């Protein structure tokens, strides 16, 4: 007897642990096989671009942190770079080294989050716990410079908010941290923040080895990722892919090398490239990126230790004057008042500033009409372009492969929805 089999539609998310936030996927299934995937996004849309139009330039830096909220400072970098281009100013050398260093710290933060959550999605619980151990150390570095663990608002047009602290924060004695344990936790934290980073970067490659030991040759991990979500180089370009998604498909494209900004031209590092363009290759690329980021941080720490100097331009239309100065100089007081009430006007014009964010090319298209607020800010989020390709890539795969694919896109809905 012939039996009629119908495709059925399945709703995936927005409340699903593997949906990485608020992705709603409407999947048309033929048994376990995907016929069509239709992502519904926008559940986290906050109108960041419109909000930025209503505020002076500096007041929107904090919004940038909240876009891709696991690679905060890289987003700030794109926005600040666009403003600096239009203003025609350049941050002092030390500030540029600090930015390079924090971009790479951010890259490690992002990739740790990615490796942990992706492994969790595919059934490897332990990696998440290991990854968060190191993430915590780097969060402390964020906190040390900006006072905030995540939403730093640390980069400013013309430099960074303040110089690196001379003292790294330490753990206090508590019922959870005491005795030998406390001593071990604080052993890296005796000196400055740079000393702490020095110790961290010495140690971090062995930590990456630990993650690799859990995953790289793990049979289950390879079964879930090898040959899954294969993207050809032509496809990757047609779909506007950047970052690890593009490099995983074998195209050696990295803005840090090809269109260097900040101090990347002075850094010695390599660009890992995949061969097959599947989830496993992209995993290998990202793991290697962590090692390379570690190398860059090391070089920055070395330079920053040897070269003190200003971290903000001496331009009081853009950067606030020192507090002590305001006590004595009327000019300084006026500048301070003007900057914090009205902001600064940015010359009319338009620019597109892009940085190599951990997820790909994060761009900021800024149009100014000469006012103290942007006329139009458009933020080009890598995740938005990547996710749009999900339908042709997962069609024909099995349902669990969708989860692997969402993981390999490295999605964060703060930036996809903006």
């Amino acid at each position, binding site marked *: 007897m012939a039996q009629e089999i119908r495709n059925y539609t399945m709703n995936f998310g927005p409340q699903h642990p593997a949906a990485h936030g608020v992705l709603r996927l409407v999947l048309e299934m033929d048994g376990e096989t995907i016929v069509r995937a239709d992502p519904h996004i926008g559940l986290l849309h906050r109108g960041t671009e*419109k909000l930025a139009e209503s*505020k002076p330039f500096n007041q929107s830096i904090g919004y940038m942190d909240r876009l891709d909220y696991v690679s905060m400072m890289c987003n700030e970098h794109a926005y600040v770079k666009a403003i600096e281009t239009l203003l025609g100013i350049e941050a002092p050398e030390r500030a540029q080294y600090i930015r390079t260093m924090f971009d790479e710290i951010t890259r490690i933060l992002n990739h740790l989050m990615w490796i942990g959550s992706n492994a969790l999605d595919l059934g490897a619980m332990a990696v998440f716990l290991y990854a968060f151990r190191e993430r915590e150390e780097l969060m402390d570095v964020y906190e040390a410079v900006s006072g905030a663990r995540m939403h730093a608002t640390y980069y400013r047009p013309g430099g960074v908010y303040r110089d690196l602290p001379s003292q790294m924060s330490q753990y206090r004695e508590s019922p959870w941290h005491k005795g030998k344990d406390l001593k071990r936790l604080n052993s890296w934290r005796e000196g400055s923040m740079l000393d702490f980073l020095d110790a961290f970067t010495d140690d971090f490659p062995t930590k990456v080895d630990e993650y690799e030991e859990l995953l790289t040759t793990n049979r289950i991990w390879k079964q879930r990722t090898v040959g899954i979500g294969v993207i050809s180089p032509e496809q990757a370009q047609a779909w506007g*892919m950047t970052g690890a998604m593009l490099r995983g498909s074998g195209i050696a494209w990295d803005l840090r090398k090809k269109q260097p900004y900040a101090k990347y031209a002075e850094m010695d590092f390599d660009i890992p490239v995949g061969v097959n363009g599947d989830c496993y290759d992209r995993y290998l690329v990202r793991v290697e990126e962590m090692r390379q980021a570690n190398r860059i941080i090391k070089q920055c720490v070395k330079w920053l230790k040897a070269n003190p100097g200003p971290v903000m331009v001496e331009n009081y*239309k853009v950067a606030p004057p020192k507090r002590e100065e305001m006590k004595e100089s009327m000019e300084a007081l006026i500048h301070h008042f003007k900057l914090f009430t009205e902001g600064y006007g940015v010359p009319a014009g338009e620019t*597109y500033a892009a940085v190599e964010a951990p997820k790909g090319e994060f761009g900021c298209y800024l149009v100014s009409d000469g*006012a103290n607020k942007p006329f139009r800010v458009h933020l*080009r989020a890598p995740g938005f372009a990547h996710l749009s390709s999900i339908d042709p890539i997962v069609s024909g795969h099995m349902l669990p492969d969708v989860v692997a694919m969402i993981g390999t896109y490295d999605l964060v809905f703060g930036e996809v929805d903006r």
Partner: protein
Amino acid sequence: MTDMQKTSLAERLAARFGDTLKISVVRNETSAELAAADLLAVATALRDEPGFRFSELVDLCGIDYLGYGQVEWDTETVSGSGFSRGVEGEAMGRFDWADRPRGVDQPRRFAAVIHLLSIEHNQRLRLRVFCEDDSLPIVPSVTGIWPGVNWFEREAFDLYGIVFDGHPDLRRILTDYGFVGHPFRKDFPLIGNVEVRYDPEQKRVVYEPVTSVVPRVLVPRVIRDDADLLQAQAEAADDWRRN
């Protein structure tokens, strides 16, 4: 390749497309303005021809030029009456729906801006296409050339109401199901038109006109023509500060 290094992108574009493109180079960024009717032919050539090879469309976004250069604070005429002078919240977004600016005579309000990237030549190019009709802005869709533009065009449609002719699936993307209007247009109030709350009597979420927020100006939008930055640089060079 030797040919490539000798001529700049702008020169090659001018030689290939002639009057079709209005090319400008500012701060090493090449932009070209073109008519909507020429977009598809130019885009195909830009992607395929060996001199250009813009294999990636990095970004597409809409712009609404309504109120370009409009300010909330008159800095030219008076300075006697303090902060309140002229701050009326008439610039973009600072009004409610009833008081929205209308009938502004602005030829060609909407534009779609495309950012292209050539991986082979390591070059970027910006294309700007103005929409002829303000009441029904239409731009041809380039989804047939770069499939990755699909969502970017949906976004520009959703937020600005720009219709991409030939798009396979032009639905809203970022706003809520059943949303009315195009929120990033400059005549769309920042506070929105409707707010939601749970109505205990009807036992469901209801949509109502916005009452909980009032549009207001904290920092007025202002354009100053004095050369602020040049002056500041001169001041910074001055060493009175250190005395």
